[in-house]
């Protein structure tokens, strides 16, 4: 009997830290997924360049702060990188905008082209080397009920809550957010009512790009930075978006956290070598069981 309880508590001891760190990384996947869903909701385009642009931004921050391009403070480097990414978002939308209203399939293929260019530019400017990019987070760690909580965890949680809360506030309560929701639910009617589709599309692209940068910045300290890491991290974001239904912002938040937890459990209990295959399985399963996302079953969609 006591052996049984011991093994149970052993599982719980493993399980709680796994779930906790899954929630933390899940918040980051959600940040990536929210960007994809924002763009998809209003323009029906899947932005395959999302990961490449976010990775490029992480490299820019490295270049601006390490003395490779400039020797700036961390905050200034981040600001500069965000300016660059917003410029890229404008540029990408300028290329895609003639296609968006004609064929969303062609526009989606065009985002692959943008992704290729950005990926190539990353390789050309920064090379294929692996670099370390750290976050200036407080070195702090405490233990609550056997959970080790670090400064990094709290930073990620705070940033994610503030960013996502801010985004939902904008979408729920501002004029721009209402326009975004109107265009997402019926673009034609919204245009008839005098809303400018293009400005809302640009809003979505810019917000998505900034979310991507934040996600990339926060995920890099857990691994390292190379020309492919952030793009690979976007597979998790895509999986999160699919689990959430691809057209629901709260859904993609829940999808991100679910993917974070499942990934952690899978790599710990089954195998760390098949993580992409596992995500593939999750995507296929989610498409079969919840074609419209986990939230659609429970109740109507918000936003």
């Amino acid at each position, binding site marked *: 009997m006591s052996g049984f309880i011991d093994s149970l508590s052993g599982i719980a001891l493993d399980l709680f830290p796994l779930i906790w760190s899954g929630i933390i990384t899940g918040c980051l996947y959600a940040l990536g997924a929210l960007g994809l869903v924002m763009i998809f909701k209003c323009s029906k385009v*899947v932005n395959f360049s999302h990961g490449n642009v976010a990775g490029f931004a992480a490299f820019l921050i490295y270049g601006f702060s390490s003395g490779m391009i400039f020797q700036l403070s961390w905050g200034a480097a981040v600001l500069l990188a965000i300016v660059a990414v917003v410029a890229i978002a404008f540029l990408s939308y300028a290329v895609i905008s003639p296609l968006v209203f004609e064929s969303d*399939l062609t526009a989606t293929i065009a985002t692959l082209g943008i992704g290729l260019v950005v990926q190539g530019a990353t390789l050309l400017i920064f090379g294929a080397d692996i670099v370390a990019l750290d976050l200036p987070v407080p070195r702090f760690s405490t233990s609550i009920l056997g959970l080790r909580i670090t400064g990094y965890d709290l930073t990620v949680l705070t940033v994610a809550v503030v960013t996502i809360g801010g985004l939902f506030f904008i979408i729920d309560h501002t004029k721009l957010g209402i326009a975004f929701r109107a265009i997402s639910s019926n673009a034609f009617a919204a245009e008839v009512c005098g809303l400018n589709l293009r400005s809302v599309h640009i809003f979505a692209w810019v917000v998505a790009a900034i979310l991507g940068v934040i996600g990339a910045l926060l995920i890099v300290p857990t691994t390292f930075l190379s020309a492919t890491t952030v793009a690979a991290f976007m597979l998790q974001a895509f999986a999160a978006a699919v689990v959430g239904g*691809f057209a629901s912002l709260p859904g993609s938040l829940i999808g991100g956290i679910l993917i974070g937890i499942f990934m952690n459990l899978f790599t710990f209990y089954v195998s760390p070598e098949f993580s992409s*295959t596992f995500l593939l399985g999750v995507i296929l399963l989610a498409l079969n069981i919840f074609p419209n996302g986990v939230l659609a079953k429970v109740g109507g969609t918000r936003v």
Partner: protein
Amino acid sequence: MSENTSVLSAPKSVSAGGLPFLSARVGMVLLVGVLFLLPFVLKGSWVFTLGVCFANSIGVLAVSVLVRYGGEVSIGHGFFAAIGAYAVAILETRIGLPLYASLPVALVLGVAFGVFFAWPSRNLSGIYLAVSTMALALALPELINNADAWTGGYEGLYVSKGIIPGLKMSLQRYYVALVLLIAVAYVLARLRHSRQGLVLLLARTHPAAADAFGTRRVWARVAVMGISCGIAAVYGAALAFASSTVSPSGFTLWSSIFLLVGSVVSFYGLTLPRALIGGVFLTLIPLFLSGSGAWIPVLYGLALLGVILIGHYAPKISELLHGRSKETS
């Protein structure tokens, strides 16, 4: 997703231009004849490169079929190509079967996996297929590397068994790829005019009408994916035979995206010359840029965007130039 894909079929005037049908056929025969005679004039390394180029052309056709008939885009066709390539390589190294025995196996496996992966997204818009094939392409390298007892892991496998006795192996690699390309292009040309092909096109352009005629859209979608993935498996088999090696580095997400680039550059064409344009683009540009690899994605990306924008603006510009007004649209 595919309500309005008129851009995709933009350059209609090229294929249906003023040339009479007969001279188009003569041109095709001439092209095939020239391709058959090329190895007698070219150096050995070019013969090898062209063999790979023909194989890549088959891959371009596989992606174009999916876009044309299905109105969908896959960025994971490298997976199905890998199925074909590894089927050929494993059957040869394990039980010594040559290509003519392993090619049908590759084809059947490709179709089966294609249907299997189209199934979950059968009722959903095309973006789900794009996303799930992306996951497929990303999962592929770890699957290959972890099955290294069969696949040879990072090093890969060799394909060295000839199928035409008495012919030099380098020439066999060239001619087998060429014959497979011509066969696939011929089958696709027949499909275009067959009852089944028309049904598939109807299901894509007018789903309601197709429904009324008894063709279910789900069936059409899955069938197109099956055809496309079968061709992709043939591409993999041809590539394995033409390049003599199979390794995971040939089947990454990037190589799948490059196939899509080749398809776009050939304007999603399903004819032999168009496929060759895509294949040449995919084979020769890395060759010329071999010194500076990072330029390849940049160039491919720019070519992709350029062709898409040309496809978008060309009909409008020609409309302006010819002063045609409403009856064309």
